[in-house]
């Protein structure tokens, strides 16, 4: 409770939390408010906003309801962001823990692989991966995670290195626990907080990467995404600018919300730490 209170101390964190809450509400409400396929043709093409109250934001190039697309797009953007971040954090934490706990050759090999991934621009990697495997939601998530797990891996390793010599780890060794069990039962959970602190940055980056991939035509064609909407809308950027501005603003707000909320969490925990 106290922590929650501390989280809401800065206006930035409040704003971030509000944006995220709104976004989650939109994502949850999408199938209720706009049942059926959001990509279905709902009216005449390129209907301007505020002309027809059943289509408040108008329609796109094919006559699809922009508001319905926007709502359903929130689901995809959030799903991609969260899933990619979860995958990146999981892989990173496991690799980092293994490397830090095992040390020696395993550490060396794992860290060189991490280096290799870090030297290749992650967007280039994602671009190549999606072009090659073919764009679907799962592939896009995997491609983003592929370029994002190295940060968590490094942080986890550094944290594990400092934890591994602690008393309770030595204790676990003494009672004969399997090293892997020690690594994942005792060490990993304790190394997790600083790794999780990276999650907001990764979620935000994932949402932006998905948008950029969609912009280059590498999004899942069977789902509405904001990036895909911008990409579609940019051919009519001058004639119907709102078609790309509206999803653009949604994207910026979401990323901003994720950052601000994430920062609020980090700060509130940091304050707690420095107090304790």
């Amino acid at each position, binding site marked *: 409770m106290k922590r929650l209170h501390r989280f809401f101390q800065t206006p930035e964190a409040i704003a971030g939390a509000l944006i995220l809450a709104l976004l989650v509400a939109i994502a949850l409400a999408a199938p209720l408010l706009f049942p059926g*396929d959001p990509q279905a043709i709902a009216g005449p093409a390129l209907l301007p906003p505020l002309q027809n109250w059943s289509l408040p934001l108008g329609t796109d190039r094919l006559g699809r309801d922009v508001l319905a697309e926007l709502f359903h797009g929130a689901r995809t953007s959030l799903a991609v962001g969260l899933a990619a971040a979860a995958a990146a954090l999981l892989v990173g934490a496991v690799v980092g823990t293994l490397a830090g706990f095992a040390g020696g050759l395993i550490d060396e090999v794992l860290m060189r692989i991490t280096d290799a991934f870090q030297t290749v621009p992650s967007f280039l990697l994602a671009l190549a991966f999606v072009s090659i495997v*073919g764009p679907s939601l799962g592939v896009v998530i995997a491609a983003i995670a592929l370029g994002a797990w190295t940060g968590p891996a490094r942080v986890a390793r550094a944290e594990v290195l400092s934890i591994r010599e602690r008393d309770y780890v030595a204790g676990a060794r003494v009672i004969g626990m399997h090293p892997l069990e020690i690594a994942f039962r005792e060490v990993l959970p304790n190394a997790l907080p600083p790794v999780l602190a990276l999650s907001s940055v990764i979620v935000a980056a994932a949402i932006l990467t998905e948008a950029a991939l969609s912009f280059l*035509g590498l999004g899942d*064609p069977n789902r509405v995404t904001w990036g895909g909407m911008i990409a579609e809308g940019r*051919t009519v950027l001058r004639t119907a600018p709102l078609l790309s501005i509206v999803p653009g603003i949604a994207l910026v707000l979401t990323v901003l919300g994720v950052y601000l909320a994430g920062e609020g969490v980090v700060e509130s925990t940091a304050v707690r730490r420095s107090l304790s």
Partner: protein
Amino acid sequence: MSGLPISRRGLLAGSALLLASTALPAIGRAQTPKKGGRLIVAADSEPRNLNPAIVASNGVFFISSKVVETLAEASFDGKDGLQPRLALSWEGSADGRSVTFKLRDGVKWHDGKPFTSADVAFSALQVWKPLQNLGRTVFKDLEAVDTPDKLTAVFKFAKPTPFQLIRNALPALSSVVPKHVYEMGKIEDNPANNAPVGTGPFKFAEYKAGQYYRLARNDAYWDKDEPYLDEIVYQVLPDRTSAAAALEAEEIQLAAFSAVPLADLDRISKVPGLKVITKGYEGLTYQLVVEINHRRKELADLKVRQAIAHAIDKDFVVKTIFLGYAATATGPVPKNDPQFYTADVPIYPFDVAKANELLDEAGYKRADDGKRFALKLLPAPYFNETKQFGDYLRQALAVIGIDAQIVNNDSAAHMKAVYTDHAFDLAVGPPVFRGDPAISTTILVQSGIPDGVPFSNQGGYKNADLDALIAKASETLDTSARTGLYKEFQKMVAADLPLINVAEWSFISVARDTVGNIANNPRWAVSNWADTFLAG
């Protein structure tokens, strides 16, 4: 350059009031040919091989056709739709075994050597027949080219070959390259493939990868008055929206091949100083086609194919996806073809009830969730419109209870998936009609084509009657009999639906008012631009 636009803009702003009253004379002035100037054109891709004798494709022609000329060019009013270029006349023998070309005198290659019949013989036998993407089919029976004198080339065919086909193939397939440049070493590795040498009105000057191609005036061109322009520069603009911006910013003067997206044309036509031109592509018709994999048991059923044809609202496609810059299709030959087209074929009007009925009859009843069966739909990624039509088709099929899942691939993966692996149920393709069904149209439905051949029947469709008809037409020499057979061909294709022709479209050019003599032949964008000029 950086200082110029500002002063010009100032001028325009200052004379805005005057402009309204003097608009007509301004347009009139643009029509007076004028010598000199640099025309800057948008290019959206960079062809790797610029030799049009090897790669007969519009991407290559767009640049190379100004450098390397063909024997004849397409024409709005010439006999058989042709006008002379390197050949002055062409005559086919009655037995279909030979074609005689009389060549233009006094033509010189860009390196100063004279152009002779030996060059034509070399190009035909060493390049078109063995190496060219289209020539390998059309010239497959070419046996020899006799050169009785320097200005006569006689093509000899092993089997009777319709003269009509050869004639129709001339504008795209007959780029003549210099023998003396290509006779040493392997033709495919010749450096001239990247810096072509020809007889055209412009010489290839330089290429900066990722930036531009520059062509310079050929002062020794055979037509003494032409070309008008000093230079043509192709500025590489990979992004789809940048051509419109560059036109408006007066950085380029011409964007051909619909480099300005269709959806932007309405707005850009109202920008002062810019004009939208829909002519000049009559000879380059692209067809929007639903390719069907007949290996799927549902799609092997004619009723299902008919249902799909009835489910597609062709008018909507033309109006919404092509914004009116297209025509609905009835069959495998486009409506604008003057020689072969027939409207007398079975048609499939947009009728959802009929489509549902046909599917019910075929035995594919709707399940509880309203769906009959699921399909994999692969729209070709090459054009914005093919992708958009894929999105539309998915919706149109959903209405009749067919659940189509779109698979987006990039070009290479699409090629492999559809034409080699056959990993598709429906695909959206943009085949090109090249003036004669035998060049690249019959191959779309003919059986027995090896796996991996692009833009061909890879859907496993087999119809012995249709194959026989195609074979018969390919050896019919009499023009009207041959034309009749191709009309029959259109009927059979429209009746049995090996594929569904949805629409036919061409491209749009946007240019500044100052660019003159645009679109004066049916293949203008890929012709030699000798008479194109810049006024003012």
